[in-house]
């Protein structure tokens, strides 16, 4: 490691003011601080600092997303095999297929997002920030596997620039960057974001997998329910078999790449909670809010809104709900920042997600919109909590 350190020290002057590689200072900086903990020592205030930093925080989140990513890979392959009518499911082939299916999206998201981040850091003369490490992996996980790459690129660029950088970068954004990417895709290219084709990878990749016939249907359970008529909400998988609650929990169903497996999401949640990165108050209250609203909806189930027939448990397992609760609602920058505010914020995310999903047949899924809506309202919630603190202080003077 010493040799590497010495090498970095040797080339460092080229990237500093006046060096011939100065336009790439932010890139060098980014890699240097990635490889070696900065030697900066405290100049004011406390003389010792906790070992955790924002790189640590982000890497734990990335780690927590790994079960979902790996499961997503398997599921992408599995759906392809299933749609082709296969009866045998060779594990490694399926994994390899899924990996190849998601890799281009992942690479495009990172290239576009990090490229913009590096450029902006260079332009502002700041250090490169880690926020996009998480965003870049979230984007493929919440999109349908068949999303065209150029759409991913456009949507990522849009949200990194207009949702994050114009507000000042990581820590200043009002809305969740990954979710805005998804919302941009959803509203700009609705045909590629919903329906019964986009959630299943339908071509062979490097000789792996199967070319599916044009007439297969692989709608998500929520998609099927939204278009169901009458009180019949039987949902089936691609092969036409009924999907049980257990399937919904395990996640071998069509859906956005990394969102289908509630089990893997819970493993991720465990990692986030044990390491103390995500706030348990938010996760708990999102599930509480969702369960509450699903129960109300179920009590007044009506054929006009077929999703209202879903049980509480199915509501929480289906679609992006659990993923939103664990990875989206807990984004520290865009949630409510006060302790009381977090309960209110989380509860409303849960309630609104189920309301949209159940009572708006145009949108089969509401978790994304619910989180974005509450992102916008989080400052208002905090404002009320802060005012309560201020009023306590004022009351003390009067007493």
């Amino acid at each position, binding site marked *: 490691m010493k040799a590497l350190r010495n090498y970095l020290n040797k080339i460092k002057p080229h990237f500093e003011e006046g060096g011939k590689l100065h336009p790439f200072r932010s890139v060098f900086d980014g890699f240097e601080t990635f490889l070696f903990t*900065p030697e900066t020592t405290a100049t004011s205030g*406390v003389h*010792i*600092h*906790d070992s955790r*930093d924002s790189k640590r925080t982000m890497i734990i989140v990335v780690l927590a997303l790994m079960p979902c990513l790996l499961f997503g890979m398997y599921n992408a392959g599995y759906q392809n095999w299933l749609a082709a009518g296969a009866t045998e499911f060779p594990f490694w082939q399926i994994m390899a297929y899924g990996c190849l299916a998601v890799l281009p999206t992942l690479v495009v998201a990172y290239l576009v997002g990090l490229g913009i981040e590096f450029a902006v850091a260079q332009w502002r003369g700041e250090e490169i920030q880690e926020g996009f490490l998480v965003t870049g992996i979230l984007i493929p996980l919440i999109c349908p596997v068949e999303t065209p790459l150029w759409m991913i690129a456009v949507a990522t660029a849009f949200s990194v620039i207009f949702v994050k950088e114009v507000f*000042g970068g990581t820590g200043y954004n009002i809305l969740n960057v990954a979710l805005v990417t998804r919302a941009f895709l959803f509203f700009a290219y609705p045909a590629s974001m919903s329906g019964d084709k986009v959630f299943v990878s339908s071509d062979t990749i490097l000789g792996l997998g199967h070319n599916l016939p044009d007439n297969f249907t692989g709608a998500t359970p929520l998609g099927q329910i939204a278009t169901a008529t009458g009180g019949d909400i039987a949902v089936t998988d691609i092969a036409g078999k009924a999907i049980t609650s257990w399937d919904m929990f395990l996640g071998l169903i069509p859906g956005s790449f990394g969102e289908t497996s509630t089990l893997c999401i819970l493993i991720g949640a465990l990692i986030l909670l044990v390491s103390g*990165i995500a706030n348990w108050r938010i996760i708990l209250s999102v599930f509480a809010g969702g369960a509450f609203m699903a129960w109300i909806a179920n009590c007044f189930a009506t054929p006009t809104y077929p999703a209202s027939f879903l049980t509480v448990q199915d509501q929480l397992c289906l679609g992006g709900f659990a993923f939103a609760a664990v990875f989206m609602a807990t984004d520290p920058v865009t949630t409510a920042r*006060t302790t009381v505010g977090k309960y209110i914020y989380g509860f409303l995310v849960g309630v609104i997600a189920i309301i949209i999903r159940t009572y708006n047949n145009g949108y089969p899924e509401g978790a994304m919109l619910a989180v974005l809506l509450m992102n916008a309202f989080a400052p208002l919630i905090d404002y009320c909590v802060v005012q309560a603190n201020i009023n306590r202080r004022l009351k003390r003077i009067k007493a």
Partner: protein
Amino acid sequence: MSLQLKIKKGLDLELAGKVESDKVEKVVIPDHIAIFPDDFPGLTPKLNIKEGDPIRKGQPLFHDKVHEEMNVVSPVTGTIKEIVRGERRKIIRIVIAVDQQNYDKGISQSVNPTDDESVIKLLMQSGMWVIMRQLPFGIIPDPQVRPRDIFIAGFDSSPLAPDFDVLLKDKVNLIVAGVELLNHLTDGKVYVTRRRGSRMPDIPGAEMIDIDGPHPAGNIGTAIANIAPVNKGEVVWTLSTITAARIGTMIRSGAIAPTSLVAVTGSEVKHPEFIRTLVGAPLKAILEGNLKDDDRHKRYISGNLLTGINVGPEGYIRWPFYQVTVIPEGDDVAEFMGWASLSPSKMSVSRSFPGHFLHRLFSPDARIKGGRRAMIMSGEYESVMPMDILPEYLIKAILSKDIDNMEKLGIYEVIPEDFALAEYVDTSKLELQKIVAEGLEYLRKETE
């Protein structure tokens, strides 16, 4: 019946280099000392002496420009060796060559205060006034304002801080004398905090507060915020029992104590120990022969690791004169991918580090261990601040110089040290104490 206070939020840092023995074996009388006007915030110094003058213990070195009777006095007898000035002739320090035989022979005050006014005058002239502080702002108290209450900290819960039971052994009668005098100066109460289970007895004339819990349990701001918070327009005085004992010494004998008991702490110290030395002694004399010879760059701190001053190897012990800490600087360490480290020697409140689960003593260096970021995580500051304050919002109000919101969010209740632990745990590595200090300074200038 004493008040009971249980602190839940906070953090005790488990660090190597604590003084274990409570024996004082070493006495160090150095050949020179230094006094820093910066240690007396709120005072604008006007010199009473010039270089080469002989000086006696208790004789004024400088006084405040506004309150001319408010003196900072020499703790020893000797000669003014040097007056070191900085930019715009600001006085950095006054160096005094110590008369090593007669350092303790000085002038005495005649102590017979008859009314409150003469008590104030006595404290100001004897140099005892300037070692007290007030809330708001954490500055030397304004003699024209009668405080609502007086709060006296009876212990220090900072990392590696010495046990006041040792520092104040056999001095309870002096604290009692100090408290008795201070009782004249407020219409409210004199509160004295003590760690639950401490040997300190009840002090007559004071309301005792028994506090239990992790740091910042010993910070006087914690006690005030939980017992009787400071509202806008109110003033409380704050001091420690060590200061109270110094005042008591002056009342009983008319003379001031030239020495101070100092805890020498930190992971780079060979034998952490208590030594008795002069107020303002150079660190060289205090640390002589007691540093590890491990070729590491070292950081010399007067005070504790959270609020102390980085004074360097040539520095001096600064107010409040009872702790010196030496740790590795860490700028000579090339740590490969520290953010991914699973090393058990990394200290953290985060459960993502194995060290979090180990009951061991850590020896952290002075690196900030990350890059400075915008405020990203929420709730980190609150988790270590046992006050009804919303620290993130207060910090943001300070950064935007929004006086109205600073007041509403309780800036009068805090001083920088209340944010020290928050600064330690902050993943964004913001300089919170500096921000608060600058905010208080700004507010004081704007509201004067």
